[in-house]
């Protein structure tokens, strides 16, 4: 099968998956106990006001029309209006998503750079103490609940030593002119440091173990022996020949991790009161603001599906040995 064919088939699968998740979501929200209208109207309202509100949120339409409009809404990025604040869900996502992305990308870069380096060293020193401690570190990073690490960091560095802020993204009296101005300010970096590092600590275990396992496989291949027989320096063999080959699955895993970590930052955002998309989804869920909960969830799922798609294409593009069947 050709490359084009693979891309087309994979695109079809992408659309199918998105549709299935959207349908699942629609069904879940309609099947659950309790009527969503009860959360937007009060008993004391005039009947005309009640009807107007129901009509405004489209809840008076028959099911199949609601379903169709829901799908059209997702495609056109029109995700409805918040029950709580009467703002457009699209606008709410546009406010909170960039904050999550900055946090997530910082954490991912730190996690993958250090994870890959430690994983390479671990595989190279196979069977030695340094390998065992690296593997143990990776397992510890994956096992420690990220929100608990966050609590400990806040307790020691925030409450006790008072060197990091206890919550938020900027200081209260800081008024940035634009998003760009904000994220390049020192105040923002000061707030970003703790949550980003805690998130990076949690994420690092996966690339570390993956890199180690890949390296172990690559190191057992013949071309490594050839490199050594040629008399290349150990460092050259390790970084130029072995690590580069072992890096490939880590790159695609990184692409997939971008997708999952948009939603995975929820707990960190909650602990550090970081105004991100995950925390906003939790708040919407807790106050039964269904359009926002639904819209943010669609966004988080779409991030996962699209990054999985990107990873697949990336893999076939980066590795010429991949066949399409």
């Amino acid at each position, binding site marked *: 099968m050709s490359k084009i064919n693979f891309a087309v088939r994979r695109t079809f*699968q992408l659309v*199918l*998956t*998105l549709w*299935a*998740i959207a349908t699942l979501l629609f069904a*879940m*929200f309609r099947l*659950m*106990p309790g009527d969503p209208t009860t959360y937007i109207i009060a008993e004391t309202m005039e009947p005309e006001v009640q009807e107007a509100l129901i009509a405004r949120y489209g809840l008076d339409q028959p099911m199949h029309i609601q379903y169709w409009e829901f799908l059209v809404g997702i495609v056109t990025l029109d995700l409805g209006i918040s029950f709580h604040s009467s703002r457009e869900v699209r606008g709410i996502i546009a406010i909170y998503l960039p904050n999550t992305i900055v946090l997530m990308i910082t954490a991912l870069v730190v996690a993958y750079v250090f994870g890959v380096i430690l994983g390479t060293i671990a595989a190279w020193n*196979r*069977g030695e103490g340094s390998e065992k401690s690296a593997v*143990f570190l990776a*397992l*510890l990073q*994956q*096992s*420690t*609940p990220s*929100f*608990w690490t966050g*609590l*400990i960091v*806040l*307790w020691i560095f*925030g*409450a*006790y030593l008072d060197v990091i802020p*206890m919550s938020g993204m900027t200081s209260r009296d800081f008024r940035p002119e634009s998003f760009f101005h904000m994220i390049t300010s020192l105040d923002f970096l000061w707030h970003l440091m703790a949550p980003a590092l805690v998130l990076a600590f949690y994420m690092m275990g996966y690339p570390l173990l993956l890199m180690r*396992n890949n390296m*172990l*496989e690559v190191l*057992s291949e013949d071309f490594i022996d050839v490199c050594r027989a040629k008399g290349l320096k150990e460092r050259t063999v390790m970084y130029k020949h072995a690590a580069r080959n072992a890096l490939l699955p880590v790159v695609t895993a990184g692409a997939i991790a971008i*997708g*999952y970590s*948009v*939603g*995975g930052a*929820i*707990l960190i955002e*909650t*602990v550090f009161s970081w105004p991100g998309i*995950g925390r906003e*989804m*939790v708040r919407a*869920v*807790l106050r039964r603001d269904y359009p926002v*909960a639904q819209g*943010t*969830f669609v966004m*988080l*799922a779409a*991030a*996962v*599906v699209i990054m*999985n798609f990107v990873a697949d294409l990336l893999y076939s593009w980066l590795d010429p040995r991949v066949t399409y069947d």
Partner: protein
Amino acid sequence: MSQQDQSANIFSNLEEYGDADDVDERQRQIRLWKESLGEQWELLTDDRMVIFGMITIAVFGVVAIIAPLLAPYGPTERDTMAMLRWEDPYWMGGAGDHILGTTAEGYDILSQVIYGTRPALIVGLTAAVFCAGVGTSVALVAGYYGGRVDDFLMRIVDIAYGLPLLPTVILMVAMLGPSFVNVIIAVVLVMWRAPARVIRSQVLSLRERPFVQAAQITGASDWRIITRHIAPNVLPLTFLYGAFAIAWGILTEAGVSFIGLGDPSQVSWGTMLQGAHTNNALTHGTWWWFIPPGICITLVVISGFLIGRGYEEVTNPALRNER
């Protein structure tokens, strides 16, 4: 001997429960299972880390069972004196006999930690059994039958791969109501995908092996080939994903409880941490409230990962340490 008699003879011991050979057949099966499980067990217990993981989970299991004997107070038993002010641990000068002090609501922290073992293990183990069970069953069916069945099931797996774990669990728990059962359902809904995909590819290759083809030629039923010839070979992978699912189940339950969507009727480590967070235990520096539950979560979760990694080395000899 007529042709028919002969064929009856040849196939008689291939019947599921032939009456004459029944006992022998079962004994043989039990012996085979024992042998292969014993082999895996030895490979597994070769690793000191795996032993550590198993002992830790066993200890927490015992604590969960005899929690009422160990805990000095009930999990929801309030010290009315301590409700007025948080009691410090008695060895730090707090009043009463609270080894780890009390929460802001006047509950004994040590007792809550001990009782918290129960929901953690129940959620972890149940999620593990169902994730591994559902995943393996789907993988066996998809991989063995192939074709459209395989296509259909693998498209469902693709869809499951589109679900982000924590947001999905949060949404489902919010809609179905906060309870451990719903957390388990949500975790299984998301996490069965990994064993399904990985074990299926294993089954695809097993299906083409001579021993399976030999079984097919002798007329063994599909059910028999799947359960007797293929399933035992993918068992280490099933255990691997089961062990990982324990870890994911417990982490997820703790996270969901921390957000405030935990089972309100029970005390779990996650709800303890939520209580500590919302009551500003951090700024008050009452570390005896929020340190112990976190250590417990980490210990149980790392045990799951360690056992899973042990199985990883059983299934992938390339990773085994040279000794």
